[in-house]
């Protein structure tokens, strides 16, 4: 058997005319945390759905734990656990019953079952509510229950599709602690999609995906080195002319948008005092920061991930609302 627990070769998925996943290939090692970072509609969930046997690829091949995701579906399903992006609980059953159902279909031995279910319910702070129907849970509580369920059977490969969306920082922290511990103890491989930069930084490797294509793949540190420099944002009384002045004087590229000017500079802390002294336009505000994965995405695509994030939150709200209306 090879060292790789996920192997994807030239994977393509078309929905009618739309190419959701466009010829991607990558490999993930045992015990690695591998992240997909990309804007809405990039094809992250579609890729996961193919890897977990919910969707059939149009072409290409995917192996999980050495098993083919099309021809050896039941072995693949034995090997994986999932936390879906969209809700997938039985809202008419209690939290406890949801976990018991999961434990039974995943054939967990009875001796481990009850004890681990209790451990998870305690960890997710749902123990007191374990007998309540899930439909009475808050959004964050439902999310925590889904996470507990995905982790419950200690799968070999864990797919987390935007796992901590909508959770408070303490809970996020607690869950990540557990995931990292699990990985250490059981060599669990984690496949993660996220928009959250903190979360992305936890990955050993990140693939940046846009319009169904992988446009960069490396460790977060190396990716950030692509931008490599500090980032300065300035607001002035006349951005247009200010941009010209900076470009001419320092021979660098300046990005100009509604929030002001941004440019990269090798050593920002040294640069800034002189810059402010010598600059001829009136400066309204200045900001200096280290490059982030955001900037990497921006550099590669000319768009920001965060612009999309707002829409994502809205989408989630509309979805929630729609469900409630239907009921």
């Amino acid at each position, binding site marked *: 058997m090879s060292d790789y627990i996920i192997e994807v070769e030239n994977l393509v998925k078309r929905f009618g005319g739309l190419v959701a996943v466009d010829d991607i290939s990558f490999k993930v090692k045992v015990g690695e945390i591998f992240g997909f970072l990309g804007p809405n509609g990039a094809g992250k969930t579609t890729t996961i759905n193919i890897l*977990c*046997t*919910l*969707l*059939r690829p149009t072409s290409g091949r995917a192996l999980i734990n050495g098993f083919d995701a099309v021809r050896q579906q*039941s072995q693949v*399903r*034995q090997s*994986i656990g*999932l936390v*879906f992006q*969209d*809700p*997938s*609980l*039985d*809202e*008419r*059953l209690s939290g406890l*019953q949801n976990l018991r*159902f*999961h434990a*039974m*279909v*995943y*054939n967990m031995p009875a001796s481990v079952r009850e004890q681990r279910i209790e451990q998870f319910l305690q960890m997710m702070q749902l123990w007191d509510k374990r007998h309540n*129907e899930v439909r009475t849970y808050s959004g964050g509580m439902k999310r925590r229950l889904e996470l507990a*369920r995905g982790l419950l059977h200690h799968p070999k490969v864990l797919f987390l599709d935007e796992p901590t969306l909508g959770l408070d920082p303490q809970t996020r922290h607690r869950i990540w602690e557990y995931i990292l511990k699990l990985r250490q103890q059981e060599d669990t491989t984690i496949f993660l999609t996220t928009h959250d930069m903190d979360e992305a930084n936890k990955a050993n490797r990140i693939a940046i995906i846009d319009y169904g294509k992988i446009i960069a793949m490396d460790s977060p540190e190396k990716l950030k080195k692509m931008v490599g420099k500090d980032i300065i944002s300035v607001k002035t009384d006349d951005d247009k002319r200010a941009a010209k002045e900076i470009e001419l004087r320092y021979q660098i590229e300046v990005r100009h948008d509604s929030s002001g000017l941004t440019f990269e500079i090798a050593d920002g802390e040294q640069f800034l005092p002189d810059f402010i002294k010598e600059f001829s336009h009136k400066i309204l505000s200045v900001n200096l920061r280290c490059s982030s994965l955001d900037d990497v995405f921006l550099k590669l695509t000319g768009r920001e991930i965060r612009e999309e994030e707002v829409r994502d939150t809205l989408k989630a709200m509309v979805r929630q609302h729609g*469900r409630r209306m*239907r009921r």
Partner: protein
Amino acid sequence: MNNLRGIYTIWYRDLLRFWHDKMRLIGSLTFPLLFLFIFGSGLSARMGLLGPGIDFTRFIFPGIIGMTVLMSSFMAGVSVVWDREFGFLKEVLVAPISRTCVAVGKTLGAATVALLQGMLILLFAPLIGVSFSMWTVLALLPLMFLLAASMGSFGILLATRIRTMEAFQAVMQMLMFPMVFLSGAFFPVQGLPTWMNILVKLNPATYGIDPIRQVALGTQADSPFSLILFGHTMSIWDDVMILALFGLVTTVLAIWSFSNQE
């Protein structure tokens, strides 16, 4: 062993949900009870005896038991559509249990719930002046279960191919009521107009209602209620064979359909 556990888990969840949902239980019993008491008593007085010692209420009682079982099990497919809409189906479809287990577990769940509802109707027998012996009841239960299982797998087969709740409801209305009304649940199936006769005999539900009635009324082969197919008076076993065949075909198709869906 693994397969049995898978089937059991799917079945058990359906029963839990049924138990949680007491409103559904009450709702599903109102319709048959209204039929039985209002329709039955209203018409009974006028119609006199339909057969030796059998008035209209006694005649339709087994029909109503059959109708309850049929409607409940056929509608159970809705849970598949519901699970798809609420996302729970994904949890089931990525789990390491075969699609065969899922389809069989769902069918058995639907059948069990329907059987329970049919048994509740059975409890009303004394109120309309019917009394069944222990043996009659024991003979009725497997017949009710067979009807429930075959109609359940039919409903689930349809549900695997239908994406929205609205569409499922529409298909149900289009199929379920004709199936109920053309099954002989409410009238004897002899001496019908030709077109109706053909539809009644094509309707699989007919072969579920007939044996239930035969057992409930204890009728003989020469009874005016007998189901006659191509000049042959159908025995309980004949009916059971046809219905079981139908159930087998729909179950196989439902398994196939579950296995080949995205």
